[in-house]
């Protein structure tokens, strides 16, 4: 056993396959040219601004309000997606009903549909004279051109992240464990909450964080339904666009640097959670 293990360990360290040098170098070079150098240049630019100028743009009231709006709407949308995404994944893996396949395929629509197309379509459906907008309007809910509309667009964009993270875990979950819980006297509800939910939780969280981080930077699907009213329904990426249109490159860079710092911290958190999840399994 031990020698077998050692053999495998040493084998893992050295691969006899050809081409590591070429492929590794190409990977690093392409990564540097397309991603790392441009991103690095942006941070260099934002550092060269100096604190005064950075604060003037990044900490202006209009910018801070847009950041707060982006965060709250992305957070609420992620919570909605966590809840709805879990139920949808549950329904798609556990129940068999007419049209299940179609629903399953439909879940990926936000990945495939261009964001601008999603944006104008959502806006048409949820505006005051739209199919759903008129219904919601009658009960006093305005679902477009305000933060509610932004949240709807962000739910749209984030849903597949949650469903597709949870689905494989639910599929692989062993029925025997559920049976054991039942035979030990747990009710169905107890089994779901105490047995199934904890093992799904890591996937559910990482899916939700992915949906949140995507929602934070989302632009195309949001701007049509947002209304873009200054101080009220401007998202942070729109501030960057507005500053660029005014040829205020410094201002755009400052806001972008702040947004990136925030979303990179989220990425680190996500990686940490995934590593922990792997270690547990």
């Amino acid at each position, binding site marked *: 056993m031990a020698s077998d293990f050692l053999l495998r360990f040493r084998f893992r360290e050295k691969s006899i*396959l050809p081409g590591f040098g070429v492929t*590794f170098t190409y990977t690093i070079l392409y990564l540097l040219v397309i991603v790392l150098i441009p*991103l690095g240049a942006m941070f260099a630019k934002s550092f060269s601004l100096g604190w005064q100028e950075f604060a003037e743009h990044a900490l202006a009231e209009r910018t801070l309000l847009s950041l707060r709006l982006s965060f709250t709407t992305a957070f609420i949308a992620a919570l909605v997606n966590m809840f709805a995404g879990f*139920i949808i994944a549950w329904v798609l893996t556990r129940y068999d*009903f007419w049209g299940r396949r179609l629903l399953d395929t439909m879940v990926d629509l936000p990945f*495939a549909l261009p*964001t601008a197309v999603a944006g104008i379509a959502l806006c048409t459906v949820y505006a005051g004279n739209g199919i759903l907008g008129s219904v919601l309007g009658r009960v006093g809910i305005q679902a477009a051109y305000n933060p509610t509309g932004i949240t709807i667009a962000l739910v749209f964009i984030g849903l597949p992240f949650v469903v597709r993270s949870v689905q494989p875990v639910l599929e692989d979950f062993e029925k025997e464990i559920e049976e054991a819980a039942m035979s030990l006297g747990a009710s169905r509800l107890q089994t779901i909450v105490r047995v199934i939910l904890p093992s799904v939780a890591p996937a559910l969280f990482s899916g939700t964080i992915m949906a949140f981080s995507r929602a934070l930077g989302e632009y195309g699907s949001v701007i049509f339904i947002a209304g873009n009213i200054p101080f009220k329904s401007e998202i942070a990426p729109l501030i960057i666009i507005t500053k660029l249109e005014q040829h205020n490159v410094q201002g755009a860079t400052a806001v972008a640097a702040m947004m990136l710092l925030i979303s990179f911290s989220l990425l680190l958190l996500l990686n940490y959670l995934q590593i922990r999840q792997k270690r547990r399994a």
Partner: protein
Amino acid sequence: MTQGQRSYLHEPLWLKAVFIAFAVLFLTALLGLPLYEIFTQAFQKGLDFYFEALGDAVTLASIKLTLLVAAISVPLNLVFGVVAAYAIAKFDFRGKSLLVSLIDLPFSVSPVIAGLIYVLLFGLQGWFGGALKSAGIQIIFAVPGIVLATIFVTFPFVARELIPLMEEQGRSEEEAALMLGASPLKMFFMVTLPNIKWGLIYGVILCNARAMGEFGAVSVVSGHIRGETTTMPLHVEILYNEYNFTAAFAVASLLAFLALATLLVKTAVEIRARLAQRQRLQAGAEGLS
């Protein structure tokens, strides 16, 4: 051991009905109705108007540009994806997980920022702006900028699909090919590539859908010069903001058809990949016994 025999493991019928109704209603309101609306709006003024809108010279130019951008950016990211996945999955080296995280990085960068970073490099006020201007090369507000921004946002798609797949497959089949005397290139094209075929197609169609549909990043670097630097999504925006809704939805419907085709191919690939996986496992089991 069918599910029916284990009915005690199921929720009460009413709860099941509530869950299914919730899923159907939620997905209809969020995904179904917007999709339906794209087509009803596009054909609102009849087929003649629809084809007239699509036959417009600016629309045709935008379709051409979109195809051109995808034709450059998708193959580049395809090659990168295969090469990176090979280096990462078939070899062990320090900093591997860092490299994987760096490849995923563009996913967590807002598309608007993806456009901005190239403006900072190649724009008039950018690092290389002066040099490019005196050399007479224009990248920002021109096609090269659009291509660069598209490559950035679609950067991880193929690699991310292939890395877990190749890691799972290991390297024993390649080692066998080498020991039987295959040259490195022959090993790659006859063993490695066929094994990742389905994952590769899957990654490429998702990459292509995003490349043709990218809006935020392209919007920043395009400059919106009508008929010259407007891709299809940008053209949709321009028409929509001019209150030319039917024409906007007509162009949007083409992109929606692309999305539906993508979903169709994706589903077909998933089924084929599952079959291929089962065959591999069966062959492996027979080989062992």
